[in-house]
């Protein structure tokens, strides 16, 4: 694993010989606990263009709830062959309430062997997380999970 800068910092190259387990740390801090929904649908639309996002193939694993959102284990597995001609090109993770909706992109190639990634992420709030797999044939597949970030006592809404 190597750390990249700027935009690339959020992208991890899962190169030959297995799967990437990379920590993600770039996203800025949440503005408030009741962060308004970000523009996740727009960002997803920008990725997939006019193509349909199919349900299936992708399995996004998140705990259903966590004490706090500092370090949440996240794993994605795509049930798809990884051959030269037919493989998972990328796995994109999107969040609904983090300051930046586009959380991670894992780039994969056939030599990754299997399309399975795991990392820990920071989640600002109770929200939906969506994983989208981009296949070499240009199709998109997705799975979503809802995660509860239990909120700290005495402070659910903060003074402005």
């Amino acid at each position: 694993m190597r750390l990249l800068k700027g935009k690339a910092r959020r992208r991890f190259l899962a190169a030959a010989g297995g799967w990437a387990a990379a920590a993600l740390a770039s996203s800025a801090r949440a503005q408030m606990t009741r962060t308004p929904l970000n523009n996740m649908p727009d960002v997803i639309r920008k990725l997939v263009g006019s193509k349909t996002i199919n349900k299936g193939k992708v399995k996004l694993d998140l705990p259903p709830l966590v004490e706090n959102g500092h370090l949440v284990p996240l794993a994605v597995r795509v049930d798809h062959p990884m051959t030269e001609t037919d493989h998972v090109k990328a796995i994109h993770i999107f969040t609904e309430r983090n300051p930046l909706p586009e959380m991670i992109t894992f780039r994969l190639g056939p030599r990754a062997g299997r399309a399975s990634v795991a990392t820990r992420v920071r989640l600002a709030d109770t929200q939906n997380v969506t994983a989208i797999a981009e296949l070499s044939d240009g199709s998109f597949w997705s799975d979503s999970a809802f995660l509860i970030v239990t909120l700290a006592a005495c402070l659910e809404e903060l003074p402005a």
Partner: protein
Amino acid sequence: MDMIEMPKVSRRSFVIGSAAAGTGLAIGLKLPPFGPDVVRAQDGSPEVTHWVVIRPDDTVVIRIARSEMGQGTLTGLAQMVTEELECDWSKVTTEYPTPGESVKRKRAWGSYSTGGSRGIRESHEYVRKGGATARMMLVQAAADAWKVPAAECSAANSVITHTPSGRKVNYGKVAEAAARVTPPKDVPLKDPKDWKIIGKPVKRLDTLDKVTGKQVYGFDLKLPGMLNAAIMECPVFGGKVKSFDAAKVSGRKGVKKVLQVGDSAVAVVADTWWQAKTALDALPIVWDEGPNAKVSSASIAEINKAALDADQAFVGNDAGDAKGALAGAAKKIEAVYAYPFQNHAPMEPMNATAKYTADKCEVWVPTQDGEASFAATLAASGLPADKCEVYKIHLGGGFGRRGAFQDYVRQAVLIAKEMPGVPVKLLWSREEDMRQGRFHPVTQCKLVGGFDANNNLTGLHMRISGQSILAAVRPEAMIKGMDPATFQGLARSGEFEFGYQAIPNYLIDHAMRNPHVPPGFWRGVNINQNAIYIECFVDELAAAAGQDPLEFRRKLMAKNPKHLAVLNAVAERAGWGKPAPKGVFRGLAQMKAFNSFVAACAEVSVAGGNKVKVHRIVCATDPGYAVNPAQIERQIAGSFVYGLSALFDQECTVKNGRIVEENFNTYPSMKLAQMPKVESIVMPSGGFWGGVGEPTICVAAPAVLNAMAAAMGGKRFRSFPLKNHGITLV
């Protein structure tokens, strides 16, 4: 009464998991014999919405997601459901739905978090809608049976009446049918002016069990075959276990296991807790104390003092040009205040009981947030949500220690994992509870006020230095590095709005300095010190201007009429401006916190220069709506016990990186004889929902301090607790 044909309810009991003694857990089940859509409680009675179970004898079981820790939320929330359900209050009982069940049912009961004085004000709408939905389903079921329009029927006191014919039926008789009615989409709620049970000082639902001893607390819990664990974490925060000599104690009577828990703690498991505790005391442990072993209260205070004049600070609230106004002031007043670390010190120390097998992990725990405990259980056990469950138990005190922090749950599960199949109760000793707190943050505050030539306050700079809670606990909630919670009671707007916005130029900022001692949310959180800082200094300014503290405040509060209304109310009730009894002096304070407006007027006498008697405190609160005024009055009095204990006697000092005070002998709570008479004015003005459990705590201390200054010829104490100045509360 008309008979409505009902399916026979089986008395078969559906027990899932194991219910702890005293916690009547009903877990919803969908079972074919009762039809596909009816969800049933353990005793087979149907749910009419997930909020309500109605038994054939008309007993109504109301589900309460928030935790009861003495504050009365169990009763208040049940009142809210009852109001809309129109059921007979004398037949209401309550139960906690389990967090695991909530997760299965897509968070049917919403948040479990019980803190921030939010239990009622955050959930009032959906719990009332739950009650209203259930009532509409019951009425619809009766109307269907009578073949009349539901609009011709009404409900009151658990009885449905068909008005044109006078036919009546009890809730218990229609519950089965009601459970099959499709819940209505449009659920109107009553106008507050029509409330019959909300706003009434009904008796608490949990009192009888508590006074008779039927209530089982977490640290009283006994499960069959249960073992007991004692634990010690490195007393220097951030330190780790280097080594321990288990052989020295493993042969002791009753000792079953000596084990490391995580990086930083060691536990002993034994037949009885005392065996575990004494073995742990005798166990040689070598700690790696880490880089903080030299930190002391004095070294922390030095850092905070320096930060009072630091160039860089986060601006939490400002208006006009405070620095310019102070530079041009005809007269300036300056004061520095300091507030210590404090511990929640609930009567019941931290505890959790856990049972682990490869297929199931169950935890019994007094917790302010069942979901957080559940999350900790998942993380520590490594098991999926459908193999975990948490059973909540009423708390023997919470005060903020048992919500955001689930360290004791993690520890209990990690210990239970080493003893598969055996329930293990982890109970912290009092000393462990005192050493391993999540402490009220340590801060200082420098205040500078400037007057023009006519004694008008033209500028105020309030510089807070020191610890941020969110930096340690929830960095994701910070705003560009700033901790907004630092400014509770001083904020630009919202539920912690500053009450002196008529000051033409002010600046309130925070130079953050975070020591290694872990901070937490301590009842009232940052309003405790902020109220002392601002309210005592406003009195100092009034004195400097030669003005009456009430009249002086009134001018500064011209833009905050609701803040002023509660202040005026206490002044009037206390007789401000009229002579007090001989030797008795008065002091005022006000604040907005947790969306309620609060104020206090204290009456104090001082004997021998150091013996302080607080005779009376008049307090007013405007929480928008008052669900149970009797309960609010008790909350106010209880908050004063907590706030005055902190003011006079409570400090956690740091020496060699660890907390010095380990028990109530050095960290005392005030006694009954020291308690002032408390007169409460509950004055809900409507249109908003404010909290009750915390806000009033913050006005007791500054009101008493201001009265003490009046009694002592202007002498002021600016660091706390007052015992450090030789002051005793009598």
